[in-house]
């Protein structure tokens, strides 16, 4: 069965303390991996799409990478406004989008 697992469930960082969020997946025929940011009480907001192992995408303090088994979302020198839940989703060979449960990130001044 296709599965997406995100870790850790929650992460607390000090402002400026870089870290990484993990998204590991088991899918039949990966067609794309998506990262979303979700603020409390809001809908997810699209960040990145990655298609193949070795691909990287960057946006401000965020950088997403992809291997054959997992993706990392690296956060460099985070600020309090980066606090949110980060969701990972994979599109399998049957065009089904499978979401992970998310990582709740809290960045404190």
């Amino acid at each position, binding site marked *: 069965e296709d599965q*997406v697992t995100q870790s850790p469930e929650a992460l607390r960082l000090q402002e400026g303390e870089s870290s990484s969020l993990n998204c590991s997946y088991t899918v039949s025929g990966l*067609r794309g991996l998506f990262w979303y940011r979700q603020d409390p009480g*809001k809908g997810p907001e699209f960040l990145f799409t990655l298609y193949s192992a070795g691909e990287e995408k960057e946006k401000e303090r965020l950088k997403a990478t992809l291997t054959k088994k997992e993706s990392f979302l690296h956060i460099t020198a985070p600020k309090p406004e980066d606090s949110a839940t980060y969701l990972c989703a994979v599109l399998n060979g049957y065009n089904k989008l499978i979401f*992970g*449960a998310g990582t709740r990130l809290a960045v404190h001044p």
Partner: protein
Amino acid sequence: SQTIHQWPATLVQPVGSPLSLECTVEGTSNPNLYWYRQAAGRGLQLLFYSVGIGQISSEVPQNLSASRPQDRQFILSSKKLLLSDSGFYLCAWSPNRTPILSGANVLTFGAGSRLTVL
């Protein structure tokens, strides 16, 4: 530019009452439309999707139904709510290209509707 609207934002309903959540998309034609439910500690669960007016596909059996009476309008309904229907409901859209939800078709979500059934 495209925008997606969902309402109501918050809803508190008694068990056994009906439900209607509405979603509309502006700035695009013939979008693919989706209803998701988000439960705490779990990934988003796809409930329904639609590729056109009157075309609804259901992903999981449940107490809910969906309708698409107009091109850019998607409605989630229930005749009698259950306690287990409580949750955060998200509408989303993607461009209508074949196949549905290809890697190039990014999902764009609405702000969500928080439903509490008492």
